[in-house]
């Protein structure tokens, strides 16, 4: 029967589509689908399918639901079909949506792992020292002076290790990267293996045989702490120092308007290089203004709208034709586009003329508005004077704080500023509130009108604007190579944002061969070159 086959299809495919989400949930899902199968063997139960497959990959679900005679058996999709949602399904969907949108689960998971590992590492030397006293106190030799001195060294080394680990590892995470940080994972595994091997040795040679030489045990604990400090040194070198020396020069281009910058990076994995580039992007690139791109789009539309191809012979270049028909269709499409390009080149196009005059006109208009704005702001600033201390006692009436002063002089320059922002298409970047705030800020810090205007005359970097503009957005790293592999010469990857993407290419900094040349200070000698002409 159709319904049965579709349900078994559901359970199988649902497991697969869920597996494509995050692998942390895979084990949970496999348990679910397995239990469902066992239930369906005993009795025919009609279960509503679990919430998650309704979320993702609806295309996958769609195509396997349609078997061969779908057109006859199913009718219009109404609310009472098997796709119906009950109230708790909706709640489950939203909960799962929240879980999958943030990577909180993974972050907390790594954090708890790190804390467990840290506790294990710190308590191990203490356990080594304390366990003999607990397990065989009577057999133990008393601790002499040298041994007690070692206690102090263990204590201080542990303190230094604690501070060093806190400084290196317990910093607020600045980003969520797509893949795990390979070096950290390797170091964690190394530390774990190391501590386990020490425990093994301790368990076999000391606990089992109940060694009485307490000084040897203390020295063993000290050697563990020393080795942990060396592993921390290794961690510093691998995680921090290795990427400091610049090795690659990356060229970052914004796809919408072509802004390009070059940076020097060290040996990093692609995902960490992407993170460094995004941080540089927020500080260096002028803010992305989609309003400035509309002019070129309209020009492009005009180019396309000029020519149209009519097929007089009646051949239809249908899109997915098979076999030799496909080549003919492709050939027709090719010749059409070539004909269009040739006709466009031949046509006497005056659009370059329009562009030139339009740009000249716009330039003139911007300069005029800018002049008016500068004059208005300078005049407005003359109305405000910082009050001296002595005057404060004399005239307490008309005293204003910076915010009120800003509000007082703002109306006289508001119109000019508004017009200027409209002409340069920046009006959506600055709200009136932010302008007044900036004005109060400039007044407080004794800035000149020119300093106040600087943030409006030139588009600044993204960090300069309000929080909404540059709050950390979702960036997608698109790369052909694996993102945990290192940067190489000729690596290309994309950082996609909602509005635009950054194209990144990397080149290796060449090996520089330098030689020296010695110049004797006494060798700087000069002669006079004469050139005289005498008339006789």
């Amino acid at each position, binding site marked *: 029967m159709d319904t049965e086959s579709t349900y078994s299809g559901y359970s199988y495919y649902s497991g697969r589509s869920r597996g494509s989400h995050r692998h942390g949930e895979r084990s949970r899902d496999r348990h679910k689908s397995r239990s469902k199968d066992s239930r369906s063997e005993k009795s025919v139960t009609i279960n509503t399918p679990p919430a998650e497959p309704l979320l993702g990959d609806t295309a996958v679900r769609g195509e396997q639901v349609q078997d061969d005679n779908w057109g006859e058996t199913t009718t219009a999709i109404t609310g009472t079909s098997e796709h119906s949602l009950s109230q708790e399904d909706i709640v489950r969907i939203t909960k799962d949506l929240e879980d999958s949108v943030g990577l909180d689960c993974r972050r907390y998971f790594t954090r708890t792992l790190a804390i467990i590992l840290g506790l294990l590492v710190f308590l191990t030397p203490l356990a080594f020292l304390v366990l003999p006293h607990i397990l065989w106190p009577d057999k133990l030799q008393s601790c002499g002076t040298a041994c007690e001195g070692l206690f102090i060294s263990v204590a201080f080394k542990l303190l230094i290790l604690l501070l060093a680990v806190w400084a290196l590892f317990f910093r607020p995470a600045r980003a969520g990267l797509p893949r795990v940080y390979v070096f950290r994972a390797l170091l964690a595994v190394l530390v774990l293996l190391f501590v386990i091997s020490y425990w093994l040795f301790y368990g076999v040679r000391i606990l089992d045989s109940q060694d009485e030489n307490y000084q040897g045990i203390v020295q063993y604990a000290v050697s563990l702490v020393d080795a942990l400090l060396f592993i921390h040194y290794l961690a510093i070198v691998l995680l921090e120092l290795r990427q400091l020396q610049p090795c690659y020069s990356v060229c970052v281009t914004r796809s919408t308007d072509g802004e390009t910058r070059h940076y020097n990076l060290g040996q990093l994995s692609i995902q960490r290089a992407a993170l460094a580039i995004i941080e540089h992007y927020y500080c260096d690139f002028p803010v992305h203004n989609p309003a400035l791109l509309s002019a070129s789009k309209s020009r492009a539309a005009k180019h396309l709208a000029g020519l149209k191809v009519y097929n007089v012979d009646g051949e239809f270049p249908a899109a997915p034709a098979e076999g030799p028909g496909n080549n003919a269709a492709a050939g027709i499409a090719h010749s059409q586009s070539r004909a269009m390009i040739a006709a466009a080149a031949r046509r006497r196009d005056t659009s370059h003329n329009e562009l030139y005059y339009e740009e000249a006109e716009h330039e003139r208009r911007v300069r005029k508005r800018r002049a008016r704005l500068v004059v208005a702001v300078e005049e407005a600033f003359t109305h405000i004077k910082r009050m001296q201390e002595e005057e404060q006692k004399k005239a307490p009436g008309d005293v204003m704080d910076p915010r009120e002063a800003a509000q007082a002089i703002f109306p006289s320059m508001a119109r000019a500023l508004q017009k200027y922002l409209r002409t340069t298409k920046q009006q959506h970047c600055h709200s009136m509130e932010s302008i007044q705030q900036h004005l109060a800020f400039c007044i407080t810090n004794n800035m000149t009108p020119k300093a106040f205007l600087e943030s409006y005359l030139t588009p600044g970097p993204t960090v300069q604007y309000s929080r909404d503009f540059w709050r950390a957005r979702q960036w997608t790293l698109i790369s052909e190579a694996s993102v945990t592999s290192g940067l190489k010469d000729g690596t290309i990857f994309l950082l996609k944002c909602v509005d635009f993407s950054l194209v990144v290419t990397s080149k290796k900094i060449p090996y520089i061969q330098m030689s020296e040349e010695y110049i004797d200070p006494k060798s700087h000698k000069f002669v006079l*070159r*004469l*050139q*005289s*002409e*005498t*008339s*006789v």
Partner: protein
Amino acid sequence: MSFVPGQPVTAVVERVEIQKLRQGENLILGFSIGGGIDQDPGQNPFSEDKSDKGIYVTRISPKGPADLAGLKMGDKIMQVNGWDMTMVTHDQARKKLTKKREDVVRLLVTRKSLEEAVKHSKCSYPKH
């Protein structure tokens, strides 16, 4: 006209005889000289070989005695009244030309066009 050390210098020369003109107290010839072994040969605009330190005529005053005698700008002066001018300093050349007791200076000058004229005449009579 290039100078090879150790070899005698050969050139096709023209005799120019200039009568000095009395102007007040001075006897003038009506041209200017440049060059000399103490000068910078690289700045000479008239020489072909920029290491040539000979004396060159740099300017001719129009309608002066030198112009009337047929001296041309860019000529290299080889001899003045028998005195050699190929290896002299600028000041020595000036002195040889401005001797107060002499009214006439007889110069031997050379220029590129002289060489070419001789070459042409040689070519048109190959059998000679």
